[in-house]
């Protein structure tokens, strides 16, 4: 029974992290793309397109963190010290990004400063999230329920590559979001950027995917040993479908399809990671069962999660519905 609860929770935490990545991914992406849209009016429209939803998107990150502390406290207590510097930098990046939504409207003199804060904060947050991912894939040394590695273990060519991949990937999500929510020249420009970042994202997914199996024999066997290889081949095949969907949507001036295809790329990459990790939660160091909190903790929070997550999805969906459609370029500019 205990094993089951831990497994369910691993799934729920994975869901929270995925929800965070795709949702905050597109609004961090909008921030990353600011330098490509120097026009003040374009930037107003861009921030207005995410202003009503960014806070909810970021809440999934808090659920991921709080949830991890509740049901996998050992992971929370070992991974965060291991990733000390990337986590702190990510948090500081998110501070600048988050306040910029309000601050940039409250001053003319410092508008440029907060716009840069928005961009650089978004970039740092995205880059550090990618580095954290790469460092996790490479493994974290744990002894006696504590992190046992060094302070710079997270910094490797592989983690820098995953950092770059996440920045480019978020930029793709952001560009597809703008293609969905804006009109005119802004939209056309976003579509061109989506093309370029789409190529970049696919290339980087490819390099990371080819590199990963050689980091740990665990991953190699998972992806290349028979018969699992048959199933794990499904992921790359579906990636190809999404890549086609993205290209098709962007060249045929579809508005929603490229965004959905880009989301698909992220979801599939995430599933790919899950295939690599299972049954570990910290690869090579901690399995899901080893890291699990006492059953009473998991059961107590699960009752709430089962009831509340569908409710949350419902009203979050409603909030998106209220702000559906294209952004009126004049709205919010009176």
């Amino acid at each position, binding site marked *: 029974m205990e094993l089951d609860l831990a497994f369910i929770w691993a799934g729920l935490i994975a869901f929270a992290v995925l929800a965070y990545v795709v949702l905050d991914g597109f609004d961090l992406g909008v921030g990353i793309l600011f330098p490509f849209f120097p026009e003040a009016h374009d930037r107003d429209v861009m*921030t207005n397109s995410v*202003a*009503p939803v960014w*806070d*909810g998107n*970021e*809440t999934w990150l*808090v*659920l991921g963190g*709080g*949830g*991890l*502390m*509740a*049901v996998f*406290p050992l992971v*929370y*207590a*070992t991974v*965060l*010290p291991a990733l*000390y*510097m990337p*986590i*702190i930098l990510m*948090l*500081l990046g*998110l*501070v*600048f990004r*988050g*306040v910029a*939504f*309000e*601050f940039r*409207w*409250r*001053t*003319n*003199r*410092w508008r440029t400063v907060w716009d840069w804060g928005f961009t650089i904060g978004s970039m740092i947050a995205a880059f550090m999230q990618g580095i954290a991912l790469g460092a996790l894939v490479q493994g974290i040394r744990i002894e006696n*329920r*504590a*992190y*046992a590695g060094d*302070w710079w273990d997270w910094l490797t060519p592989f983690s820098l590559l995953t950092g770059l991949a996440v920045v480019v990937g978020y930029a793709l999500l952001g560009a597809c979001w703008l293609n969905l929510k804006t009109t005119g020249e802004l939209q056309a420009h976003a579509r061109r950027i989506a093309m370029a970042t789409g190529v970049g994202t696919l290339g980087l997914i490819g390099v990371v995917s080819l590199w990963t199996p050689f980091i740990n024999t665990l991953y190699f066997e998972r992806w290349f040993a028979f018969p699992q290889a048959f199933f794990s081949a499904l992921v790359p095949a579906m990636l190809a479908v999404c890549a086609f969907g993205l290209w098709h949507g962007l060249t045929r001036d579809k508005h929603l399809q490229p965004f959905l295809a880009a989301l698909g790329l992220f979801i599939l990459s995430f599933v790919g990671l899950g295939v690599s990790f299972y049954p570990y939660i910290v690869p090579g160091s901690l399995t899901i069962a080893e890291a699990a909190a*006492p059953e009473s*903790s998991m059961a*107590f*929070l699960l009752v*709430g*999660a089962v009831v*509340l*997550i569908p409710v*949350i999805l419902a*009203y979050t969906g409603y909030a998106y519905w*209220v*702000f559906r459609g294209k952004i009126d370029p004049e709205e*919010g500019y*009176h």
Partner: protein
Amino acid sequence: MFMGFSAELLARFQFAFTVSFHIIFPAFSIGLASYLAMLEGLWLWKKDPIYLRLFNFWKVPFAVTFGMGVVSGIVMSYQFGTNWAVFSDRAGPVIGPLMGYEVLTAFFLEAGFLGIMLFGLNRVGPRLHFVATLMVAIGTLISATWILSANSWMHTPQGFSIAENGQFVPEDWWAIIFNPSFPYRLTHMVLAAYLTTAFMVGATGAYHLLRDRTNRQARIMFSMAMWMAVIVTPLQIVAGDLHGLNTLEYQPAKVAAMEGHYKTHEGGAPLILFGIPDDENQEIRNTIEIPRLGSLILTHSLDGEVLGLDAFPEDERPPAAIIFWTFRIMVAIGFAMLGVGLWSLWRRWRGKLFEDRLLHRAVLLMGPSGFLAVLAGWFTTEIGRQPFTVYGYMRTSESLSPVDAPAVGTSLIAFIIVYFIVFGAGTFYLFRLMRRPPDADDHELDKGPTRTAGITPGPHQDTPLESGHGA
């Protein structure tokens, strides 16, 4: 070591710094959310557009405050793991689910409806918009409930067993959530948030009354805030007293340190009004005290025994030097609030509420007093919990991550620099927003995403801010 400080001290200072900045914003946004809900309710009920204008006036400072609360809060939710890993591993099974429920029941609710509250009036109509405002207000209160339950458990832990690996294992969630100090701490904190907001709103009203005492919006703000001061301050004093008695029962060492009692007094302890506490020699010098009053307040008897710090093992005594003072600051502010509240009541009764410029000046001066009191109160209770993180069960010194002092020190400096820039600017914008004349139908500082929620868009304005707004 990092500049002569241990990793533990630096980590403690980092937590104190980030949480002190953080608590300021929720203390304001909890109260403002309820105030905004009330204003919108009055608008829908009385159909007087002035309440909508007040709503729109306060909505913008709320958005700024809320944004700062969100970003400083995310830092908190990860800092347990980066700096206090052993605490997280061991206490996570108890604290974690409470914070998980906070996210699931409160943070999503606030975030989901905040967008509609700020930008959605024209899209969803007044009634649904009011529901959204209510959801945000309720969300802030639910959030306070869970986080204060978690914090209270660290002061008065119960309902758990300890596993072989050192983890606290929850046995009785009801006992954990409703731990002995929780009801008192929650009441005390929510009232504190309301008072903090009341005095900020009151000071804003007073500022505008000083410039134009006929301004109707300023009058409404000021009047509502003074009603809050009159009604809530006495309640808060009672709640604070009950909270203190609860602390005396469960954390007597904390009360001894707050009161400056290093020595146990048999047969009637004095109330030490002032003195110089000296932790090193465990004595208090130069005291001004009232005989037996200490016993009367704490035990409700003139010769009740009041334990001093000497009644506790040396390694279980909290430091008195800071909390002796922070406690007095908090209490003094509380009584100053009561005084201002009674003063306003008297002027109101005389029909001079909007005429008495001295009262307006006093309230303006008291504007930030709530924040000071909140910080002083939190310093008192948290330092008073030392040397433990989970009172009586887990020491602060054994809660730390395996971190090196330079890592904690460097991140601390980064936090200090970033927080002063970001939240310094934010506070500046807040003051500027509250300084806007509330009469004007429109103001250039209103533009931006928040402006779109106005029921009637104002005229197009593109005058540069710095030269445009009134002095």
